[in-house]
């Protein structure tokens, strides 16, 4: 049973590189948590803080209410899986897996048992004598997992573990990984910059930007209820439409966009405010303008592109803003260039945020 808690953790490298800023969160026992964010936002540093290979400049980290600094690394039950696996090249698979228990001073017979068990848990028994140079990337990945199991790790730290795999194998491996973690009863913290991977593999996702926690929640929360602009921007493709709140008295608020007005979700916005409406691209619907539509913005089609499962329809709205709707490839409607259309907006699928003072672009800077 291990619960991990960060309390106002800050890590500064050198004098001024603030890799992690005032980070607080709780990860419960047995959870699969992903850490996502753009490159350089402090994901690896957060993992290394957890592993204890770097120490926080300020703040505290607890494992089950015990401060990490007082917990020898051997008792933290951590296992680290690196992007490039870090399988020791001069040891064979067996020796690699035996590394943890060997340096922890376990009995030989016990080590043998552990290695056998972990080899079979990743179905690699027949490769025990192989050297890393003879293994493929997915096999190395499995060795890395087996090594963690043999070290009797309860907490699995994964730093972009699938980054070195091909796209197709990667998707298979996501399932393998989650399944494996759940079967072994581990707590996993998985760093990735791929939001799709994070959403499909995790129980919870932590979004980081510039070393700060932006939002933590279930994949569902992040997709359907982002609490800020950055999350809706980073977790999935969204478009942002600028407007002013005309009325906030009923279930949906009325927002003026250019010369038109639409209804949006009424959450935390007030009459007269300058707001941004965020809508995921797959939640737009585009219809012919001559139909009897409700809650729409008018625009002109710029292009209608076929993208496999989806079509991407680019529309120039009347307020001169461009949005991209992702509509199902099977949708019967086809659009001509310059055709006037209605972009239908489902109020329940909208999120509204206060317009950032520094402008939308600036506030999404990574």
């Amino acid at each position, binding site marked *: 049973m291990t619960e991990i808690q960060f309390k106002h953790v800050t890590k500064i490298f050198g004098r001024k590189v603030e890799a992690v800023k005032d980070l607080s969160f709780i990860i419960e026992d047995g959870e699969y948590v992903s850490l996502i964010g753009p490159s350089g936002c402090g994901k690896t540093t957060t993992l290394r803080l957890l592993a204890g290979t770097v120490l926080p400049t300020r703040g505290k980290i607890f494992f089950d209410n015990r401060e990490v600094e007082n917990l020898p690394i051997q008792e933290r039950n951590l296992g*680290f899986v690196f992007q490039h696996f*870090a399988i*020791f090249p*001069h040891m064979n698979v067996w020796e690699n897996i035996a*590394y943890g228990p060997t*340096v922890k001073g376990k009995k030989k*017979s016990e080590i043998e048992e552990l290695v056998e068990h972990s080899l079979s848990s990743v179905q690699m028994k027949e490769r025990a004598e192989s050297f890393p140079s003879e293994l493929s990337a997915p096999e190395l990945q499995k060795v890395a997992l087996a*090594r963690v199991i043999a*070290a009797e790790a309860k907490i699995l730290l994964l730093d972009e573990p699938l980054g070195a795999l091909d796209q197709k194998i990667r998707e298979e491996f996501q399932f393998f990984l989650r399944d494996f973690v759940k079967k072994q009863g581990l707590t996993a913290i998985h760093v990735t910059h791929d939001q799709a991977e994070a959403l499909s593999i995790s129980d919870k996702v932590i979004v980081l930007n510039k070393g700060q926690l932006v939002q933590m929640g279930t994949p569902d929360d992040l997709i359907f209820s982002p609490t800020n602009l950055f999350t809706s921007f980073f977790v999935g493709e969204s478009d942002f439409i600028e407007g002013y709140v005309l009325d906030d008295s009923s279930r949906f608020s009325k927002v003026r966009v250019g010369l038109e007005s639409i209804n949006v979700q009424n959450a935390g916005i007030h009459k007269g405010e300058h707001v941004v409406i965020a809508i995921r691209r797959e939640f737009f619907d585009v219809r012919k303008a001559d139909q009897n539509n409700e809650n729409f913005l008018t625009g002109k089609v710029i292009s209608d592109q076929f993208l496999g499962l989806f079509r991407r329809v680019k529309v120039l709205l009347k307020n001169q803003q461009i949005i991209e709707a992702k509509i199902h490839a099977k949708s019967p409607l086809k659009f001509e260039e310059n055709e006037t259309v209605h972009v239908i907006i489902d109020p329940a699928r909208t999120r509204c945020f206060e317009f950032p003072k520094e402008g939308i672009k600036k506030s999404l800077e990574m």
Partner: protein
Amino acid sequence: MFKTDKENIELFFRKTRLKIETFLSRNSVLLIGKIITISIFILIIIGPIFYLLLQIFLHWGEIYSKVFNDPILGNEAFLMMLRSIGLSLKVAGIVTFFDLIVGIPIAWVLARYNFKGKKILDTLVDMPMAVPTSALGFSIYLFWGTNNGISRLLNSNVGLVSQGTLLIILTHIAFTFPYVTRSIKGIIADLDINIEKAAKTLGAPPFTIARMISLPMVKESLLAGTVLAFTRSLGETGATLIVSGVYQTAPVVIVSWMKGLKIPTTAFLSLILIIISLLLLTAVRLFARKVGLPWNKVFPRFERKISSKKVARTRDSLSITLFFIFVFIPALFVVIYLFQWWNKSPFSGDHEAGMIYQVFQAPDKKIDSIVHAFVTSVEVALIVTIVNLVIATPMALLISKTKNDKLKGLLDTLIDIPLIIPSSALGFSIFFLWGSNGLHLLSPGFMMIIVSHISFTYAYCVRPLVGAFDAIPTMYDEAAFAFGSSRLTAFRTVTMPFLKSGLIAVSIMTFTRSMSETGATIIVQGVERTIPVLLVDFFEASTFPAAAFAASLLILISFLSLLLLRYVSKER
């Protein structure tokens, strides 16, 4: 039952080792380790030089009277210093000039062309660097300066080139040009050929491309190689003792004054040589990035002419021919000489002038002193190698891992000092610090030879090891820590295996360098003799066949080392 016992014993030892390693990995213990590492560095490498400086400063009065105001000699010592330094600088300048002329085309040929025997040529080019300079000097002297070598081909009774400036220059070119070749060969090979191709499509002739595009890219390392060649020529003792005759270069003067125990004047001259070398080192460090070679004007017609295929081929084969005539054949001529004089003189047929008689049968039993010197040489080289591995590895680790850029830069520069100052001057400063004029811990002899050899081979160890440490990805260390290793356990189980081939290569290099050193050894040897020094002794006693025997032995050893080194670095 038995199995459990064995298991328990293994467990006990492993646990004990892990506990010790964990203890030694504590920050306080590591700090002590760092302090020891830096102390050794100061005591053996930097200390002697600063001590020399300090003593000359403190005893300026005595030095002044000996050097400038001797009751009998007046300022003769000073004049001799000036003459010898002048000669040394002149020789080094001319040698470096020819090094560039010979060294650059050969580097180009080795980096860019593929032909049969390229690997052999590559090894041969490195040979003169590995062969002990005293053997090299002796061989070259036999070839040019006696009636055995070139004169025989020309049917002449006397040597073609007598001892003196010209012979010194010929000798120095042989062992310094590889520094130029080596410094740029790898970089030329790695240069992006596409850039050159692009320039070619714009109509530039190949020579212009090489000069304007390729060479400027290598200028920093070319400069480093050139400076190394210059300082090697400036500081060489062993070969110069043999080929100089009455024209004494500064390091030779140090040796002869030291033999006459003229300590104050030797100290002063050593210091001047050290200062010249340090100024050079500093200049290179400061200006390496700033210097531009004056190559921006183009001389199209002339260059197009010398770029034509025919000229290019002539130029390349010419530089290789020059290499064989002026470097390779003279450098190894001593082996031919040995066979010529095997059991009799090829001229008179006199049996007592032959090598067999001189070495094995003559009453002074030279073979005994050869065997003794050989054992001494090997013992010294082995001890020096082992000690250096022990003290250089932590230093390399320190330099590679330190996050303090200033400390890193400082150590990085200081490491090079013993590499660049004349080894006789270095030997003298070690004699000065450790001997009766300083700490009084050692007197000239076996131990002092070891200390001096450690000093000048230290950089040869540290440099490549820093590179080896830098090349190890940090993720392996981190993985080891994450699984619960202490720092020392991680070092033993993860870092060391990466380092293995690097350590072997460094050991071979250190061993060879120690085996071949003359200048420093002569200063600190006392009554001990190593093979290179014995060779000089034999030469001075005019027993050439015996000297040839010793020289061939040295060449054989260094050749084997070189092969071993090639083998090890290929395995990597």
